[in-house]
């Protein structure tokens, strides 16, 4: 049994007087224990909404979530809110993009770590703070004793994200969802945080769902990668497969738009035409068709199905990039 088995997860935002908007469209993927899985895509592709839906953190009103989110066989979407609340922070944790705004500005760091332990492990304040110090130490925050009583604005951005990681891993959850955890950080700090995350999930055996638009992050971390476009999975592959033979024109375009040290001098960076706003609804064809270099007539006649590939992945494309064309 997979640790996490997301089946046909859909999220439809519906506000009074507005047309319903499908942010996540029948997304399915699995995460095995200890595995690191990437959800990759550009802004608005539904990757963050997917993670919030798994966590049960979407607003109570204005949206409809369907499908199944099986966590060790239990459908999280069917749990009573209080039962889900018992699991959040204990079995499934999440870290967010902006470490400054994700920490409460008026509460000392120590309390913000300790309160998870008090809630889920039944520790008293004193013991929770002692363990918090060890946690801060484990995520590489220098002088942890002093940090306990400091406030978020008093420590650096990198340290804040380390503190949030300490909070998320405090109860040794089996699954950690990281939503763009390095996007708001300096490039030099990004690598440190990724190394730390990798080290921690390796040590604790925590499975990691890495949500990112940054293929560099994927390359360094993920076992399996799900590429999302317009709320649907368009390509799924093991990391090496994806980087060696990206089949979907969108994935291919993403990979080619990353500057590389080994590319010939003077070569221009490839850019994907247009933007997400050019998408057509999946019902009418492939959402990526208007931006696609490989577009064929079939692409505008209905949504292409997600089909298994020879290399063990899945692909949703009528005219994929041929396997021989390696990335550049």
């Amino acid at each position: 049994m997979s640790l996490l088995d997301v089946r046909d997860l859909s999220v439809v935002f519906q506000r009074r007087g507005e047309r319903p908007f499908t942010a996540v469209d029948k997304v399915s993927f699995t995460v095995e224990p200890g595995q690191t899985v990437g959800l990759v895509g550009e802004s608005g592709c539904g990757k963050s909404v997917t993670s919030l839906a798994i966590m049960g953190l979407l607003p109570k009103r204005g949206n409809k979530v369907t499908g199944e989110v099986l966590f060790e066989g239990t459908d999280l979407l069917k749990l009573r809110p209080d039962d889900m609340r018992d699991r959040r922070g204990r079995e499934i944790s999440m870290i967010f993009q902006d470490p400054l705004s994700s920490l409460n500005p008026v509460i000392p760091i120590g309390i913000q770590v300790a309160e998870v332990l008090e809630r889920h492990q039944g520790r008293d304040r004193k013991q929770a703070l002692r363990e918090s110090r060890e946690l801060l130490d484990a995520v590489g925050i220098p002088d942890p004793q002093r940090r306990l009583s400091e406030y978020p604005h008093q420590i650096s951005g990198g340290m804040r994200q380390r503190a949030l990681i300490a909070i998320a891993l405090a109860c040794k959850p089996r699954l950690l969802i990281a939503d763009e955890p390095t996007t708001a950080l300096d490039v030099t700090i990004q690598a440190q945080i990724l190394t730390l995350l990798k080290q921690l999930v390796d040590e604790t055996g925590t499975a990691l769902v890495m949500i990112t638009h940054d293929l560099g992050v994927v390359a360094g971390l993920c076992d399996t990668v799900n590429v999302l476009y317009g709320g649907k999975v368009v390509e799924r592959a093991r990391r090496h497969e994806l980087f060696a033979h990206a089949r979907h024109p969108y994935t291919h375009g993403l990979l080619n738009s990353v500057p590389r040290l080994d590319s010939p001098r003077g070569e221009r960076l490839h850019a994907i035409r247009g933007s997400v706003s050019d998408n057509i609804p999946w019902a009418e064809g492939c959402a990526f068709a208007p931006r696609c270099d490989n577009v064929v007539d079939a692409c505008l006649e209905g949504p292409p199905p997600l089909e298994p590939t020879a290399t063990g992945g899945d692909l949703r494309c009528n005219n994929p990039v041929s396997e021989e064309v390696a990335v550049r």
Partner: protein
Amino acid sequence: MLRVIVRRLLQLVVTLIALSALIFIWLRNLPGGPVEALLGERATPERRALLTKALGYDQPILVQYGKFMQRVVTGDFGNSIRSGDPVTEVISRAFPATIELALAAMIIAVGLGVPLGYLAARWRGRFLDNLTIAGTLLGISIPIFFLGYLLKDVFTQNIHWFPPSGRLTTGLDNTNVTGFFVLDGLLTREFDASADALWHLILPAITLATIPLAVIVRITRASVLDVLNEDYVRTAEAKGLRHRTIRGRHILRNALLPVVTTIGLQTGALLSGAVLTEKVYNWGGIGTLITDSITGGRDYPVLQAIILLAALIFVVVNLLVDLSYAFIDPRVRVR
């Protein structure tokens, strides 16, 4: 922190000196005056001149002001022209009544306003929220004296739930310790007096509380709505914390910052509202003293002292608000 307090206190002194000069000159340029009030319209010019000289009002205004300030620094505000008693005594008799009323109103406004504002935000767009918005609009727009007479009419004339006026039932004996009648009753174990004072306090306090209540509800609602969208509230939810913890520790603590500021700013509204409320319920506090001192013959010394006192209270309350801000928000503390 200490430097901030010292600087603010110095600012306060400058404010009070400027204000005292303004009041002094303004009062003496009002038509009518204590001499006319004391002697009546038909007094002879000689007697007027005599009294004017006796009271010192014949001297140039700057000289009068200088003498006034000289006495003020020693804590002497002169004697009331109407009663002849020292101004400090007259005011300290009326002061506790107003403070008791204002505190009761503030307790109602905060105690009811913060929970209501929070609930309205949490149930945004639902029935309770709409009801609260309509209610606060009414609360802000209804004139205090109108509401006062309305409540008085309904609850003392039609249904006899509350007494129509005063602070205690006539004939009831209470021992005066602090001047706060409800508190005095508790201190001296005269619980019947305490209950009676509370019973008298309810209607005036509700009347005075309406505007601050409406403002606090609105500010709390808007502030909670802001905080609910903050990332750290989502983090708190992601931690699986209990509702109670999220509400108290993560939402309200942040949302209350603007509310605390509002409470300070409402002090002014409370003081001016007290004048009207006290008039309606014949309360006998500073508000009554102000109206009586103006209509009863321009009691300069009393008026000067009251206005200065009001300004002092306003500035001190807002200083306390600023200081409390530093306690709630660590980001203010460091600067």
